[in-house]
């Protein structure tokens, strides 16, 4: 498949000379856009320049400059580099930036996240509620001047632990009562709590079904989750049902929220590497890579040749095991007890064996380093890998395909269910297998190759059906393509060093910004890192595919049956560690 990648950069400042200036801070790229012209410029970028995929929207708090910034990263689904533009506003409440939800509906959850974590309001957003914290949470935790209850210091390593290692309990330094801050005029004694979920339930009540007699049919609200066997963790969806039909749906999340990004900003650069493992705990190898990519861009270092190959091998292995488990869990969601799942786990264990041999851990691998990987691949692991790639996996994947692919019941459950057109999929920022199952051949490995993916021969798998059937088949076929890449990588991997220089505990990262994104098994995984030259990142943002792919959940579910909701949610392939962060 030929790639036509346009590398022409767009000069926004000549098109909008009054409203746009180039971002000329050191190490920064992109354009600074006036707040009042945002909608106009965004519409132009979307309609005229064809940047149809809003990859990420995120906030940055420049406390020393008294500025708040929102960064938009947009890409073309036909491939090529992205376009960054930013809006800066003075850092004083109320902060307001018009919502771009009408231009890119994919901004929905991300703008809610910025409101939640940074306190920037988006007028024009129809349902601007908190998303990761609860309604009624005091403050906006990602702001640099917000401090957690057991706040010690701005950055790690904390003096209490380092260098002497004398541990002090955080609650001794900062007793709990001293941390309670009440808003002015607040008296806990005569406070009557309001229902924090009121806004949620109001936002659901936009549909009523009236039959011809004018009678209102009774609708019931069912809370699927947070404790429910098929929401894959503590995800919750509030579903309005008319009989068995889904009328309206809102995802509720944040039960596993730990403010990953704030902790990430406290950590040093290397501290964050094992920390990315905990996002999507199925694919720590992929998470590592995306983070390493962003920091390597900032540091401007090259990855050694052998490491590039090892990275590709690990990343494709993790894709195979992720898709295998996905197929197993998906069939489980459709009611096939656990047989397919256990069959999938059998193969997954063999892949995890290899991970264990190279990194020492089966799931939390912490294997990548800036410029390479932490240690070389043992010969025994390489032998195992060869055996797996050439002898075992091809047959097993086919066997898996045969297990149920032609089953009447399965087909009736997946064909035509959860329809999401290509247009809607792009608009709601779907990425990964979800987008490709809607017939859009967008794969970052091809669209903007990272690592050494431009050297390998593989197909971008798409299906035209846009339903669950397509999502099922895209993933099965992607496993075959991953095997193709693996075969090429295994046969051509060179000998050589795995790190460009001696490993250090503290890397020096020059000031600037970088967005590293990879095609993780679940979709586009991006890390947006801003450095101000200090040992800790100033901003560490995760563009989580699980989180953003949820945007289209309501669109896919409305009109389907409640049993299909489970399957549709399962097909998105979410991991709560990444969704809630």
């Amino acid at each position, binding site marked *: 498949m030929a790639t036509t990648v346009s590398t022409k950069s767009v000069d926004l400042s000549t098109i909008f000379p009054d409203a746009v200036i180039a971002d000329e801070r050191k190490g920064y790229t992109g354009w600074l856009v006036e707040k009042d012209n945002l909608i106009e410029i965004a519409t132009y970028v979307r309609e005229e320049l064809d940047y149809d995929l809003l990859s990420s929207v995120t906030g940055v708090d420049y406390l020393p400059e008294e500025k708040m910034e929102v960064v938009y990263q947009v890409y073309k689904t036909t491939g090529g580099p992205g376009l960054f533009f930013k809006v800066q506003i003075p850092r004083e409440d109320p902060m307001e930036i018009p919502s771009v939800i009408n231009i890119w509906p994919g901004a929905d959850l991300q703008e809610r996240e910025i409101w939640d974590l940074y306190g920037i309001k988006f007028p024009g957003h129809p349902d601007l509620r908190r998303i990761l914290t609860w309604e009624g949470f005091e403050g906006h935790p990602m702001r640099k001047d917000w401090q957690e209850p057991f706040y010690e210091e701005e950055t790690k390593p904390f003096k209490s632990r380092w260098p002497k290692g004398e541990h002090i309990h955080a609650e001794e330094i900062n007793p709990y009562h001293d941390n309670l801050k009440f808003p002015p005029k607040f008296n806990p004694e005569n406070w009557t709590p309001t229902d924090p979920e009121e806004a949620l339930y109001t936002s659901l009540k936009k549909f009523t079904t009236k039959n011809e007699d004018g009678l209102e049919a009774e609708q019931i609200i069912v809370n699927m989750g947070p404790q429910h066997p098929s929401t894959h963790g503590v995800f919750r969806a509030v579903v309005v049902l008319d009989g068995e039909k889904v009328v309206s749906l809102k995802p509720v999340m944040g039960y596993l929220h730990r403010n990953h990004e704030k902790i990430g900003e406290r950590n040093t650069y290397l501290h964050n590497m094992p920390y990315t493992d905990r996002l999507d705990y199925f694919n720590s190898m992929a998470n590592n890579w995306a983070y390493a990519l962003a920091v390597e861009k900032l540091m401007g270092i090259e990855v050694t040749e052998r490491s590039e190959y090892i990275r590709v091998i690990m990343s494709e292995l993790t894709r195979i095991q992720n898709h295998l488990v996905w197929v197993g869990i998906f069939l489980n969601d459709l*009611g096939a007890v656990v*047989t397919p799942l256990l069959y999938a786990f059998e193969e997954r264990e063999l892949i995890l064996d290899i991970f264990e041999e190279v990194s020492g851990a089966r799931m939390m691998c912490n294997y990548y380093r800036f410029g390479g990987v932490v240690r070389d691949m043992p010969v025994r692991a390489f032998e195992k890998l060869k055996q797996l790639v050439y002898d075992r996996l091809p047959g097993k994947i086919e066997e898996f395909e045969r297990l149920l692919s032609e089953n009447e019941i399965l087909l009736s459950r997946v064909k035509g269910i959860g329809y999401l057109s290509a247009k809607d999929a792009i608009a709601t920022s779907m990425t990964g297998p979800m987008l490709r199952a809607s017939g859009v051949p967008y794969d970052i490995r091809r669209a903007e190759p990272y690592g050494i993916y431009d050297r390998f021969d593989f197909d971008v798998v798409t299906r035209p059906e846009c339903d669950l059937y397509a999502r099922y088949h895209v993933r099965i076929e992607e496993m075959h393509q991953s095997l193709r890449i693996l075969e090429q990588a295994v046969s051509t991997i060179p000998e050589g060093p795995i790190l460009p220089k001696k490993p250090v505990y503290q890397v020096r990262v020059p000031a600037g910004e970088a967005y590293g994104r990879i095609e993780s098994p679940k979709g586009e995984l991006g890390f947006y890192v801003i450095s101000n030259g200090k040992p800790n990142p100033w901003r560490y943002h995760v563009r989580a595919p699980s989180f953003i792919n949820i945007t289209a959940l309501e669109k896919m579910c409305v009109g389907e049956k409640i049993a299909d909701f489970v399957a549709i949610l399962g097909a998105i392939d979410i991991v709560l560690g990444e969704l809630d962060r």
Partner: protein
Amino acid sequence: MDWTLWLELVIKALVLIFALLGGFAYLTWYERRLLARFQSRLGPNRAGPFGLLQPIADAVKLIFKEELTPAKAYKLVFFLAPIMTLVPSVIIAAVIPWGPPFQLGDRIVTQSIADINVGVLFLMSIASIAVYGIVLAGWSSNNKYAMLGGLRSAAQMISYELTLGLAFVVAILLGNSMNLTDIVEAQRDGRWFVLVQPVGALILWIATLAEVNRHPFDMPEAEQELTAGYHTEYSGMKFALFFMAEYQKMIVVSAILATLFFGGYLGPWVDRWPLLGPVYMFLKIVILLFIMIWVRATWPRIRYDRLMAFGWKVLLPLALAVVMITAVGILLAEINPWMIWLIPIFSLIAGAFASLMIDRSLRRKAYA
């Protein structure tokens, strides 16, 4: 009635109840071991040799578990529902003949508790009231998942009861009697009704799967959607009663299927040693149970609306056709005994036609 008859009845009833209880306990073990084999694992193997004491361990655990009653439940019905579910699953077994009569001293002992003339009708009527426990459990829990589960099962069981009844009619026609012993005796010399009417047996099997809410028709307790369906709010022994009812129903419907279509207690030398009857029944039941578990280990669940469409649009018309083919075939057989083999030929054609219709009924999206 003399006292020996009473004694005989009491002994037979006790034996049957204990057999069902023990059967239930070891069916759970059988299912778990078998599922494990299908899923390339081992299954329970710690308690006793081959995990044989596992059911006892489970029972002890369930007995000591705390029983919770939701605050807003309808207490009386909530309490009665598990009992109402369990009782039909036991009494339905009363009419099943487990073996030919045998001589004990100077009296003939039949190997069924009640050898009544309307045996098949009895099965039908008990099957039809078995739904109450589930519906009421769902309603009285005052929980949306449970309620949806209860309503689903009500609709499902009513729908499949018609098919079930028609499948019974096939056996009645072939056996020329409503008495279960007569039906079994009519299958002598290897003339099992499944050979004469394979499609009828298949219909009965599918309908019973739906009646006992087994995979792939386990809508009422569809874990992925409704957590646990009608018994979401039940815990401890109350839950165990539902569990028990489900597994006893599995045993009983397998027994019914064996009786009506697979020659019941008949087998080699059963006339010489009547006590071989229960052994043959046991073997047949175990094989039928194996198939049920096999299905569970393999297939996904049918979606609810498609389940109803399948029941009404495919299975019921097919059952009607099969009844008609059987009736005509029996009339023709009076002219020439070989004509009886027209029945399987024509019903297989009808079955093939219906399986083409499955495709349509399952794929129709607009069905509401």
